[in-house]
């Protein structure tokens, strides 16, 4: 499960005072421990992924990626992300807006509820949908009577993905909007802007970097989610297999090259996300810091 804490934008390094600077050997040991951990737990697996994927040459690699089932899994993953990310952007902005700008009963409860997907095992998230929409489930009979298929089909996968990823955008925006308060919006309204104009010209630009951040993380998770999706997908090849599920199937069939080829795409996605995130911080660090406060 991903770490729910989204890193702060802090870019300024505190100048080190002599009193808190450790001696050379201590520094060296600390750095060595940190680097060793990174190497063993992050870098090594990453190298293995790409190494295994290319073990039988570039030809086998591209062939593995162009098999119909793999291509269908890639298509499905992109489709799921394309649906769930925009929906969660809408949800995240609405929830953050409501929580940051209004006072209402049950606000604390809503805030806690948004965090639920982080605290619940993804498998449970998937299971909830089985209990709800499955043949023996609460709505199962009704759905069947109306010919609506949710479970073991794309709608179920989308629902499970939305559930698992819905905190990302909201969690990023809530503290940002709370800190910024209502002043800018009130100023816009007093200048004659409609509610929509105030949102479009003032609120959205004020939170754009935070929003982009949230979208990036949300997207990475939507494409990479395994547990919840695994429960509701049914693992039908070429139909309801997303990339992470497809990796598992291929691996279980001892198709190492295929499994690692698809895995390398996911790892690539992670790297791209990381690079974009870093670029965002480098390019717009000052602005991000500025929107965080005055």
């Amino acid at each position, binding site marked *: 499960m991903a770490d729910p804490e989204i890193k702060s934008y802090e870019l300024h390094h505190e100048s080190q005072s002599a009193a808190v600077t450790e001696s050379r050997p201590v520094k060296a040991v600390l750095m060595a421990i940190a680097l060793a951990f990174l190497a063993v737990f992050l870098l090594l697996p990453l190298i293995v992924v790409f190494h295994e994927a290319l073990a039988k040459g570039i030809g086998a690699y591209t062939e593995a990626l162009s098999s119909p089932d793999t291509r269908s899994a890639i298509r499905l993953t992109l489709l799921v992300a394309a649906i769930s990310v925009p929906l969660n952007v809408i949800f995240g902005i609405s929830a953050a807006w409501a929580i940051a700008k209004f006072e209402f009963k049950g606000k604390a409860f809503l805030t806690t509820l948004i965090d639920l997907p982080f605290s619940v095992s993804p498998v449970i998230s998937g299971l909830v949908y089985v209990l709800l929409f499955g043949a023996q489930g609460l709505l199962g009979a009704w759905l069947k009577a109306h010919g609506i298929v949710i479970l073991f089909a794309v709608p179920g996968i989308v629902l499970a993905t939305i559930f698992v990823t819905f905190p990302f955008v909201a969690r990023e925006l809530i503290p940002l909007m709370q800190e910024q308060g209502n002043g800018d919006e009130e100023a816009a309204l*007093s200048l004659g802007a409609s509610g929509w104009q105030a949102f479009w010209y003032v609120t959205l630009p004020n939170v754009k970097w935070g929003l982009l951040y949230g979208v990036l993380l949300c997207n990475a998770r939507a494409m990479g989610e395994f547990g919840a999706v695994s429960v509701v997908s049914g693992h039908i090849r070429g139909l309801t297999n997303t990339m992470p599920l497809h990796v598992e199937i291929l691996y279980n069939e001892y198709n190492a090259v295929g499994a690692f080829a698809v895995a390398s795409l996911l790892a690539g996605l992670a790297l791209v996300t990381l690079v974009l995130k870093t670029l965002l911080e480098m390019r717009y660090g000052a602005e991000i810091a500025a929107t965080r406060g005055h």
Partner: protein
Amino acid sequence: MEVRVVNVRKEFERFPALHDVSLDIRSGELIALLGPSGSGKTTLLRLIAGLERPTKGAIFFGDEDASQKSIQERNVGFVFQHYALFRHMTVADNIGFGLKVRHGARPSGQEIRRRALELLDLVQLSGLEKRYPAQLSGGQRQRVALARAMAIEPKVLLLDEPFGALDAQVRRELRRWLREIHDRTGHTTVFVTHDQEEALELADRVVVMSQGRIEQVGTADDIYDTPNSPFVYSFIGESSSLPVKVENGEVWIADRPIGLSAPHAPSGEAVLYFRPHDVDLLDGCSGCIAGTVAASRRVAGTRRVELEVGGERQRVEIELPVDHPAAQKSRVAFRPRRWKLFPAA
């Protein structure tokens, strides 16, 4: 534009922030809402703007009932204490924002820019149009905020603690500057402040507020020279007070008359208010307030002497010239020159 506030009451979650407030603001006037925090002055300003809706009562702009109008329809210029400039827009875009979002007859981009530069010139910031708010000083930001508010040709200008976040030097400068701008443009202007010096110096009339009520409305002279309540007396300027008794139109402290006559005051307990600097020192005491010097402090150009008066050792402060011989004595007698009696609370 003339603004009338008629019997307005405002509650937040059943907690009353304003009780039955009425106020007439004349066209072209520069008026200050002055009071301690929690007095309801900002609430009143936000009600006039339309940022809040009154629980009861109405607000008129001219003859028009504005209370049911939204803030957009009211066409007011609002300047926030913390500027609320749009940080991702340049100074010129900030000032032009109100024109850009205007419904109906929206001016062209060129026209908006021309207006923005014109206003920038008015607030003496020409040449800074391409800057972002983060690149401006506090005083400059507040000028931009005012220019932005004036761009929509508002019926009324409302300023919420406009200089509250600035340091003393800049405050004084901007105060004079705001007066000039007001005299030049003639906007009806209401500003909120907790700084009495600012209110008394800048405003044509001052509205003194306390605990959700208007205590007194008047010119700086009215407010300072003839305060109409103990609150105004003690809130505006320095004041001293003593519990006294009125008998047959004479003012007494303990068992001695102090030489002040109040023929119209009802007999009984009362409180005497006066300004510490507005007293006559006396040598002999027949009909005066006499006290033992308890403490003496030098405050800028004067000396403040704290006296213990009467059997109950009531403390009272008076102000003396620095080199006055009375400051060296252990007993001082005086009589207030200007004073007022209020019924004992």
